[in-house]
């Protein structure tokens, strides 16, 4: 190979001249540096860094973020992680296993509708309405061993396995919202009746819970009953069990018992006053009171 060819081959392999690999002459760089740099030493008009006087030398300048009219911690926008956390509704968990055990030991009666009052009367839970407890939530622990046929009413259900476990045995579930005043009354009945107040009228659910209580998949108390019938069938097909016929059931009367949305106890209506001492009930006869407590 000739020397010319060799040189050409080398040129071919060498990098091309481009903007990224060219540089100014060192004299030019030096000049530019001189123009832009602050004068130091004897030519300097002021000292760089900490001077021989003032706040900088004594290190008494305000700490980072301060020293201006609005300090840094107020200038920067922020999002609180627990914002509004203390306003959330709390639901105390109770599992299907616990419910089954209470039924086995005779502390809950499955032949009558079970609601928040019955669960609180067993004294298993530490339900305190002062801590924003709005009732109980049913969890799916023990769904495999659950055998009872119940008409149960709880405040919150998250897993559909819970609903499936109850409906497989021919039971009925509903989720119902209760006002804070109603939870006070239901969690401690003796205390409430002896306070001499009339039975409260249940309020409507708050804005963020309306969707939950009107949907049939959650078995909400405000849902359309026809839709609930469809959802029951859908869930049975999903989990692979046959739905027992409610109309032929001997306990049909108990299983079809539902409360009015404004009502909190079966057989008792809002506005009535209970007298525990004389064992009687006082019902308002005045038209204004009747209109007020009407649902």
């Amino acid at each position, binding site marked *: 190979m000739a020397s010319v060819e060799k040189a050409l081959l080398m040129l071919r392999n060498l990098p091309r001249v481009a903007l990224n690999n060219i540089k100014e002459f060192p004299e030019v760089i030096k000049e530019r540096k001189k123009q832009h740099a602050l004068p130091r030493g004897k030519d300097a008009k002021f000292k760089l860094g900490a001077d021989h006087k003032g706040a900088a030398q004594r290190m008494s300048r305000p700490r980072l973020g301060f020293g201006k009219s609005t300090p840094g911690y107020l200038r920067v926008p922020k999002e609180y992680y627990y914002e509004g956390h203390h306003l959330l509704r709390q639901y105390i968990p109770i599992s299907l296993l616990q419910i089954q055990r209470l039924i086995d030991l005779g502390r809950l009666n499955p032949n009558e509708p079970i609601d928040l009052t019955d669960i609180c009367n067993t004294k298993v839970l530490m339900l305190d309405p002062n801590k924003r407890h709005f009732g109980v939530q049913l969890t799916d622990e023990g769904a495999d061993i659950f055998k009872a046929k119940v008409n149960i009413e709880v405040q919150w259900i998250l897993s559909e396995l819970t609903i499936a476990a109850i409906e497989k045995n021919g039971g009925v579930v509903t989720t119902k919202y209760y006002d804070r005043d109603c939870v006070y009354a239901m969690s401690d009945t003796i205390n409430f009746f002896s306070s001499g107040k009339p039975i409260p009228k249940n309020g409507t659910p708050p804005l963020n819970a309306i969707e939950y209580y009107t949907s049939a998949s959650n078995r909400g108390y405000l849902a359309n009953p026809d839709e609930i019938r469809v959802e029951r069938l859908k869930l049975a097909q999903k989990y692979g069990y046959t739905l027992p016929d409610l109309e032929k059931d001997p306990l049909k009367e108990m299983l079809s018992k539902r409360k009015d949305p404004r009502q909190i106890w079966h057989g008792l209506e809002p506005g009535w006053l*209970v007298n525990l001492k004389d064992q009687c009930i006082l019902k308002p006869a005045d038209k204004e009171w009747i209109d007020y407590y009407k649902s």
Partner: protein
Amino acid sequence: MIRTFLRVNKLNALVGKNSYQLANFSRRSNQSIQERKPLPSRPFNFEQDQLTNVIESKEEFDFVKKLLPNLIVPEPPKHESYPTPSGWVAPNYEKSSNLSYYVLRTRFHNYPIYPLEREGGSRKLVKIKRVEGDIWQFDKDLRKFIEECLEKYENKKQTVYTQVNEVQRQVVVKGHHQEYVNKFFIECGF
């Protein structure tokens, strides 16, 4: 003197007539206190227009009776077969009558077995309470049963250590063997 009067006032409001006797016991100079009359009840000066009519009925009070809590834990009902769906077993007196010891149930009809953790979770114990009768024989049988269970289900050959508290009628087992203890109790019929 003012202080005593205030006190009596409070008592009057709470207890009524009985407060006189209480006051007599506590104070020496009774005369001034005895002369005091009970406080008048809350004045009812409402006119007829301000009160509304009510209907009194006793029929619906049966619904109220269902809402009142049972203050005593009820006796569990009899089931056809044991264990029940939740795993509860009733005491079998025929089985346990042959033994020289017995373990009582708690007031909630459960076994008095309590798993504990000491030394920040590194020392695991199981406490058994309410042991009646020959506690040393109970301890011996329990240890033997757990050792057999460990060999059978976990393929482990190890000795089980226990502490016997004869005065408080308690036995503490080293290791979290609460399931085997449970099994032993069911087998004994406690």
